[in-house]
């Protein structure tokens, strides 16, 4: 119940295309859902985050879509660029322990020119 399931494991997208990464959870106590971006040899960094009081959040080319009833959320990268090539992690934390993030297994995105 503490898991966050992420798919796909890897994704290849052409430049200008849309990259979509999906995550699902079971614990209804989760109420904070961030996405982290990690470049090779570096630590992950926060990309964008959402709380379940909204169904969508957009920052530039990055959008989180959230479906509370289905307990799913996804990251959409519009107009994908080669510089977006990285590993993306979704995460979640429960309202009673917001410091404890549960991470998904990661998606390696490769954007080809």
């Amino acid at each position, binding site marked *: 119940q503490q898991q966050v399931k992420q798919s796909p*494991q890897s994704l290849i997208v052409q430049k200008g295309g849309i990259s979509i990464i999906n995550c699902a959870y079971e614990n209804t106590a989760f109420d904070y859902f961030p996405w982290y971006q990690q470049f090779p040899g570096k*630590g*992950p*960094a926060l990309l964008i*985050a959402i709380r379940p009081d909204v169904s969508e959040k957009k920052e530039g080319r990055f959008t989180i879509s959230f479906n509370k009833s289905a307990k799913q959320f996804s990251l959409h990268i519009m107009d994908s660029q080669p510089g977006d090539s990285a590993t993306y992690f979704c995460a979640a*934390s429960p309202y009673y322990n917001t*410091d404890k993030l549960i991470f998904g*297994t990661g998606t390696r995105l490769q954007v080809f020119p």
Partner: protein
Amino acid sequence: SQTIHQWPATLVQPVGSPLSLECTVEGTSNPNLYWYRQAAGRGLQLLFYSVGIGQISSEVPQNLSASRPQDRQFILSSKKLLLSDSGFYLCAWSGTHGQFIEAFFGQGTRLTVV
């Protein structure tokens, strides 16, 4: 501004040898500190977290231990390394980012046990 330092960046150790990875945070006081391990295809696995000096919570049973001798210092140790301890180890601290909690990660240590 807050910064997190983690060293060494890479480490090759023989099986059975001890391990000590150090992490320090600057620019903040009483941070929550974390050790994660990243293995291929398994994402980020939380190993230990600490809410204060001497307070360590272990998330998974393993060959590793953690200590927090000072407020902004977090150490990951092992008395005898196993081959399965190989991986990418990340230290992190958490802080508020507006209405959100954000984890700030170090650069990581690539550990290879041979």
